[in-house]
């Protein structure tokens, strides 16, 4: 037992480099031409930063990187707009080495169309946190140019299955910097983020049946919160972080329950003789979407967190699974299964229309980025599970193919506060 714990800790501390091939298709309706100038100062760090910021921006499909063509201004006064035709914004900056292996990175984003400074900031961090600094800069560039906060600094969780070993993995939103939170010979399912991004609830079969655990990402301590007879599964946090909805079969059928985040004060929410599962809170915390086959085939329903009347949301031909609200609460994404294939689809609550976003395949378990602009889901290439994303308008698609293993059950984490 002790050795096993130690192995898990080591896995956490020595992140295996995810060797990912990222394939992007499609482009935003409008691509903003941006130039990134390599920052002054430490060349290795400057190159690393430029790579990360550039990759982050390109992957959204909303930006076109324009080569600075030899120009290397580090101060706004050195920029002559006439030399930057066709470029709407340019990122410049400098890196200053401080004591104790720290660096101060100053950066500015200049709007060349209006000849105005859009932002000017300094980030101080350790030299080995170049990735984090890069993602932070990309977040701010994205926000200034699109009006929505960037999600490059957020994290994702997923389960990887490789040669009979299951790992619960937390990684950067680009799939890199992966760290194993739990390694087990038995299946792991359904990771769910706490709203503050500090804990993950999940289902583990390590005691030979499905039980729900909550684990801290910082201390790595964990708590078993549901081990009733039968299956305990599908945890999801309320937006205020105080409660967890989950699915128990202790009263025979899979039904939805609400509990405190430590598992206490259990209260049953749904009463049916059907499978009610995959609860997902509305952003206001007042209602839950869930999957149920009470109407004969799996479709999406909604119920108040106080229980009571249940409203059917989808009437799709085929089946609907895994609903997740858009952060604005006006639509939800789900996995649609029809004619033998899965699609990722969005249901708009006002128009009551469903829009299919993807070409279809073995596509499951969608979740929104916290800014609502991208959807992460599980897909497949040559029989292996991979991570994939699609922009919420369906225009830009991305596949992240790991070199090995089978990736399942992804879930996009919240903004880090």
């Amino acid at each position, binding site marked *: 037992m002790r050795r096993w714990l130690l192995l898990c800790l080591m896995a956490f501390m020595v992140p295996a480099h995810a060797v990912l091939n990222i394939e992007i298709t499609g482009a935003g309706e409008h691509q903003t031409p941006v130039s990134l100038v390599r920052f002054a100062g430490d060349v290795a760090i400057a190159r690393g930063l430029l790579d990360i910021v550039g990759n982050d921006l390109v992957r959204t499909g909303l930006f076109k990187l324009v080569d600075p063509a030899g120009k290397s201004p580090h101060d706004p006064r050195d920029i002559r707009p006439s030399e930057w035709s066709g470029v709407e914004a340019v990122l410049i900056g400098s890196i200053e080495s401080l004591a104790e292996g720290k660096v101060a990175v100053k950066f500015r984003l200049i709007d060349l169309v209006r000849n105005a400074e859009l932002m000017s900031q300094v980030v101080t961090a350790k030299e080995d946190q170049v990735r984090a600094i890069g993602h932070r800069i990309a977040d701010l560039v994205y926000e200034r140019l699109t009006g929505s906060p960037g999600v490059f600094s957020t994290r994702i969780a997923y389960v990887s299955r490789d040669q009979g070993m299951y790992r619960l993995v937390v990684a950067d939103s680009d799939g890199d910097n992966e760290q194993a939170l739990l390694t087990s010979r038995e*299946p792991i*399912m*359904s990771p769910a983020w706490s709203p503050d991004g500090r804990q993950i609830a999940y*289902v583990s*079969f390590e005691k*030979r*049946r*499905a039980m729900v655990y909550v684990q801290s990402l910082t201390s790595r301590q964990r708590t078993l919160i549901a081990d009733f*007879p*039968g*299956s305990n*599964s*599908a945890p999801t946090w309320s937006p205020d972080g105080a409660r967890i909805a989950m*699915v128990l*079969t202790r009263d*025979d*059928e*899979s039904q939805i329950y609400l509990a405190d985040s430590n598992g206490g004060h259990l209260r049953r929410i749904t009463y049916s003789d059907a*499978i009610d*599962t*995959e609860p997902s809170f509305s952003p206001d915390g007042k209602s839950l979407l869930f*999957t149920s*086959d009470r109407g004969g*085939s*799996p479709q999406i329903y909604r119920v108040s967190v106080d229980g009571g009347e249940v409203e059917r949301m989808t009437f799709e031909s085929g*089946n609907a*699974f*895994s609903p997740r609200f858009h952060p604005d609460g006006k639509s939800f994404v789900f*996995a649609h*299964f029809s004619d*033998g294939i899965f699609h990722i689809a969005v249901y708009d609550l006002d128009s009551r229309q469903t829009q299919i976003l993807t070409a279809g395949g*073995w596509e*499951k*378990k969608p979740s929104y980025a916290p800014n609502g602009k991208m959807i992460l889901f599980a897909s497949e290439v040559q*029989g292996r599970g991979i991570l994939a994303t699609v922009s919420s308008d369906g225009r830009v698609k991305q596949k992240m193919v790991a070199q090995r293993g089978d990736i*399942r*059950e992804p879930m996009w984490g919240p903004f880090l506060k």
Partner: protein
Amino acid sequence: MKKLILSVLLLNLLAACGSNPPKEEAMEPATTSAAEMSNAEAEAQAAADAQAAADAQAAAEAEAAMLEKNSVYFPFDVDAVQDADRETIVNHAEYLASHPDAKVRIEGNADERGSSEYNLGLGQRRANNTKRALVLGGASDAQIETISYGEEKPRCSEHNEACWAQNRRADITYSAK
């Protein structure tokens, strides 16, 4: 519809319990063909002895073989135990009824056409319905634990019906004492 299938099966089960199904039907000892021996009586005696020994061994083997068949299978998105698995259910129910100390764990499974959580629920339902059938056949509630692996432990991992059919099942496994 699902409930109808289940109730038909249960009727059959009850009928089966009343009539004590013959267990020896498949047992043809392989050593009874010594037709050329001249002493007819000795031959008959030897054959009878061999038959008795073979019967005893065959009965033990038959019981083991019966219990070895421990999976029941389901159509797509169906959780009712099927008539095709009646014999498997009857065999295990009778064994459990006559061995009150025996305990089983029923593991429900599903194919991958659904979300993993829905499939976990479906596997649990299949396990629960298998348990109900065993209890109706004479097993006691306390002998049986039900769990689900959903689509997490596929016996076969390709995307085709031959594979999926193997994965839509419940396995009855006896706990080691």
